[in-house]
């Protein structure tokens, strides 16, 4: 499993989180991932195959990317509801840059990602400077982003048919000789960068410490306002990346989509053991959480269980994941 590569890498580090406990939650999430996968392998002959595994990974890319960014925000004690429609807006912006303006790929794609950072920057400003509660500030941004996506695209999809190489970002095969979609590489790369930032840098440390105790952090002489803006802005880059990835996969920017992705991403973060009250969590956990969601969707689909029931089951998984996490916390 590809996730273990990152897991092993990260668990070798000693982060700000107490290592043993952080690992335990990851182990729990990882164990459930294995159990669920094992269950589907037995239940359906089509589940356990290389093609299906890459399909699962491929379908994790968008939610996973959003979840990685929002992990930062949630560890810092915030929440970001604007990531879903923000992603749609970034997809549209990618269309504007590449199709309407005609920028080359090497310029247009980074511009779209940076535009996500801009969304995060505005969120961060609203939360840290204007002191609007994150839930409200990002709820407002969720509506703004959706509206802007429709306005900028005249409510019509933008097609990337003429942009050479754009869909390759998602569906191409960079690795020679194997059928392994680029999108998964992008996700893993993003996860790696995020994990290193979260555990190895000052930004990451302050993310944890603001989430643990914002007031104490401020009184320690840390400019919490500035760092919070930085955290939201950084998380915003992942909104932009997700926007590029989803439009590259579809070959078009769909301005009316995006709503609902934020909840899936938050669910992935929570299943991965990140506390919604802030102060703890990990990128590996989030990645596993996102994979659990994908595996469930994929497995249930293979077993021909209707879409409606898939959501019921996903909801139950979230309850179980959070509840076991709470029990574990009480015991220690």
């Amino acid at each position, binding site marked *: 499993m590809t996730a273990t590569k990152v897991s092993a890498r990260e668990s070798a580090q*000693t982060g*700000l989180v*107490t290592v043993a406990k952080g690992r335990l939650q990851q182990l729990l999430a990882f164990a459930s991932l294995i159990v669920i996968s094992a269950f589907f392998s037995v239940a359906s002959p089509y589940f356990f195959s290389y093609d299906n595994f890459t399909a699962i990974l491929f379908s994790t890319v968008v939610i996973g990317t959003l979840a990685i960014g929002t992990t930062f925000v949630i560890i810092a004690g915030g929440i970001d509801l604007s990531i879903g429609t923000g992603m749609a807006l970034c997809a549209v912006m990618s269309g504007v840059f590449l199709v309407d303006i005609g920028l080359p790929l090497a310029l247009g794609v980074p511009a779209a990602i940076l535009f996500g950072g801009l969304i995060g920057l505005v969120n961060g400003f609203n939360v840290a400077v204007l002191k609007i509660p994150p839930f409200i500030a990002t709820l407002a941004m969720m509506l703004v982003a959706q509206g802007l996506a429709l306005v900028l695209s005249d409510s019509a999809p933008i097609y990337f048919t003429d942009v050479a190489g754009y869909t390759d970002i998602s569906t191409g095969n960079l690795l020679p000789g194997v059928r392994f979609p680029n999108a998964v590489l992008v996700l893993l790369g993003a996860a790696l960068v995020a994990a290193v930032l979260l555990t*190895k*840098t*000052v*930004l*990451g*440390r*302050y993310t*944890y*410490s603001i989430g*643990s*105790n914002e*007031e*104490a*952090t*401020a*009184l*320690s*002489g*840390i*400019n919490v306002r500035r760092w919070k803006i930085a955290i939201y802005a950084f998380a915003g880059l992942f909104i932009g990346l997700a926007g590029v990835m989803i439009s590259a996969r579809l070959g078009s920017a769909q301005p009316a989509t995006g709503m609902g992705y934020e909840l899936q991403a938050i669910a992935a973060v929570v299943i991965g053991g990140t506390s919604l009250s802030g*102060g*703890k969590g990990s990128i590996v956990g989030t990645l596993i959480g996102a994979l659990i969601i994908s595996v469930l969707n994929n497995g249930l689909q293979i077993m021909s269980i209707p879409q409606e029931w898939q959501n019921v089951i996903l909801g139950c998984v979230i309850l179980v994941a959070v509840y076991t996490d709470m029990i574990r916390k009480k015991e220690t």
Partner: protein
Amino acid sequence: MLTTTSTAAGATRSPVPLLEVEGVHKSFPGVRALTDMRLDLYEGEVLALVGENGAGKSTLMKLLSGIHDADAGRFRLAGEPFAPDGPRAALASGISIIHQELNLMPHLTVAQNVFIGREPRRWRVLLDERELNARTRKLIDSLGLPLDPTAVVGDLTVAHQQMVEIARALSYDAKVLIMDEPTAALNDAEVATLHDLIRRYVRTGTGVIYISHRMDEIRAISDRVTVIRDGEYVDTVDSATTTTDEIIARMVGRTLAADARPRDVRPDRETVLRVRGLCTRSLLKDVSFDLRQGEILGFAGLMGAGRTEVARALVGADRSTAGEVTLRGERARVRNPADAVRLGIGYLSEDRKRYGLLLDQTVRANITLGALRQRFATAGFVRDRAARAEAAGYVETLRIKTPSPEQRTKNLSGGNQQKVVIAKWLVRDCDILIFDEPTRGIDVGAKEEIYQLLTELAGQGKSIIMISSELPEVLRLAHRVVVMSEGRVTRTLDAAEATQETIMHYATLRPDENPADAAELGLEPPAPQADEEPRKAGEP
């Protein structure tokens, strides 16, 4: 002067006290809060209850309102044994308590607040707003209060809010009314109105226990004064025939006084921090003091005197509205805690868990937090090895008892947590340390260690502001003591002048009674270089 006197009114009173407290003991884990407490309150009487912070007043109130159970001893209400099992039961038996912090719902009306939990209803489910207002009107009129039942409480002045509390307390037909610092937020005219109300109220055959620190008020309103100290009953005296100083002498006792004091008074040292005319919107008025190098400057005063507010304003946690802070001769501008830390001022809050520590994080993370970017990071990447080594060093030098620097801070004892906070500021090279209640929540043995540490730090040239409500602690450690009352500095005492009595005297002074001059405040005459252009403080 042990007296069991008649009331000031001189009226014959029933031999059975309205409320009798006898031999009450109460311990909490590690603390003996009350030992053999007694008290009696007669009909028609106002009994003042006085004692220093932590003398046991609030514990006694909690026992009376049934929030805690006494370990031993008896309460009697009009001769009958009385053991409330909760605030509701206490109210039902006729004991109403008005706590120092108002317990009102600001968005509800006066009437809704007064009858909260007992709203008149129609058909069991519908609220009868008209009846509610009518009843409140009647109550308010009978008390002669200038209130409108339909006014929203949040819009009222604090004095009127206080009256709503009183109306609520009395609406329970209380026989005994206990008021905890009822005048803390009132001006003189309002205090007079309140006292008038109390006098009229006790004439109806009830009794009031009046808890206060303000000696002038106590003498004005009370018939007798019961003094408690360190959880023990000390004495009950007649208000009319006892002087304020006699009461204060009983409050502070004479134990502990002069045995340990700072040996080396250091008047000749350089002034590192000069504060002039510091004001905040809420409380502080014209606070001025000097802090010298290597000095422990004690800040004494009663709860709410504004000591913590001085600290918070100094480090930029709260905004100051006026005042000038000079750091080593240079004008310092502190707009937020980050500025303060850059200038080398570290603040150790009395509420370590809330403002000082990341409890879920490791000892190492806490110690290195403040200096992470400056000392333990290269190009944004944290150098964990350096951080670990530094943390381990401080664990050793400050004698922090922890199995390892990787231990979570919440598993440490209070004293060791405090040392972690101290280490955090030392790592950041702060040479002005502001300790707010440095030994709060720390057990006796560990207190001694913190005292030693403070003395050592001062010996190494750190300048320390120590805010403390424990006078023995102040007397023992502080080279000089700044005494505050109601947001102002009333006096700065040298170690030689500082005694429990003098400190309590200035702490209970209403500041306008005796405006202190610069010499009394222990201030240096303005230095010539103070006039030079305000320079931008702080390193890049």
